[in-house]
C-alpha cells in the first residue's frame, strides 16, 4: 500500500496549562507507527510548544472564549503541522533576530527563531494568525 496521507485535527483551549499535553498528544499521533527518531520528536515537540504558546498567549491572549486549532498532515516523508489562533495576527518580518548582540540577553523573543531553526519549512498565512511548519522524516 502506498500509505495514505493521514490528517489529525484538534482544538485546544487558550490555556498555557494545556500546551504540554497537546504537544505530547499531537507528537504521539505524528510519530505513531514510525521508527523512533528522537531528534525529530524533540524538534517537533519544541516547535509545537512554541507555536502553541504564541497562539495561546500572543494570538488569543488567553481569552477563554477563543481556541487554538491544530491540523497535522502526516505523510510518509514529512509531517506538516498548522497552528491557528483567533487573534489579529502579526507580521513575522518585523520580529528582530534574537541572536544579534543587542538581543542575546533578552528574556523573550526566541520562539519564532527556534521554530525556524528546528523545522524544515515555516509559512504563515497572510493575516499572521496561522503558522504552518513542515518537518521531514529523515
Amino acid at each position, binding site marked *: 500500500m502506498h500509505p495514505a496521507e493521514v490528517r489529525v485535527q484538534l482544538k485546544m483551549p487558550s490555556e*498555557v*496549562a494545556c*500546551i*504540554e499535553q497537546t504537544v505530547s498528544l499531537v507528537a504521539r499521533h505524528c510519530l505513531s507507527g514510525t521508527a523512533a527518531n*528522537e*531528534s525529530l520528536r*524533540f*524538534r517537533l*515537540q*519544541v516547535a509545537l*510548544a*512554541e507555536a502553541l*504558546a504564541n497562539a495561546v*498567549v500572543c494570538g488569543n491572549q488567553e481569552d477563554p472564549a477563543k481556541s487554538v486549532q491544530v491540523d497535522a498532515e502526516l505523510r510518509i516523508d514529512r509531517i506538516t503541522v498548522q497552528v491557528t489562533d483567533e487573534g489579529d495576527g502579526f507580521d513575522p518580518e518585523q520580529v528582530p533576530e*534574537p*541572536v544579534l548582540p543587542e538581543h*542575546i*540577553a*533578552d*528574556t*523573550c*523573543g*526566541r*520562539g519564532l*527563531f*527556534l521554530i525556524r*531553526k*528546528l523545522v524544515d519549512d515555516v509559512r504563515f498565512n497572510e493575516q499572521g494568525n496561522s503558522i504552518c511548519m513542515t518537518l521531514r522524516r529523515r
Partner: protein
Amino acid sequence: MGIHLTKDAGGAVVVRVDGQLIVGNRQELKDLINGALDSGERKFLIDFARTGYIDSSGLGALVSLSKRVRELGGELRLSGLNEDLRSLFELTKLDTLFAIADTPEQALANF
C-alpha cells in the same frame, strides 16, 4: 514531573527539572530560585538530566534568573543537557551566556 530543589554538601542549591521547562511551569522555577535567593543562597546548579524539552520562555526564564543571581553576586550553572537540549542553547547563542557542565558533579566540583 516537577521541579525539585536540594542542597549540595558544598553549599550549592541543586535544582532538577523533571519533564519540560516551558511557558506553563517556568514561573515555578523562577519562584523556587528567587525564594532561595531571598533566603541568602548564591550558588545554583540547574540539572537537566531528566528534562524532555525546553521552550523559548523556559530559556528566557533561565536568562532572567541568571541575571538576577549575578546581580546579587551569585552564580548559576547548568548541567545534564543532552545533545538536543544543548542545541537549543547553541542555536540561540545562550551557550555563551551560561556555564554549562556535562554532569552535576563536574559543575559542583569547583563551585
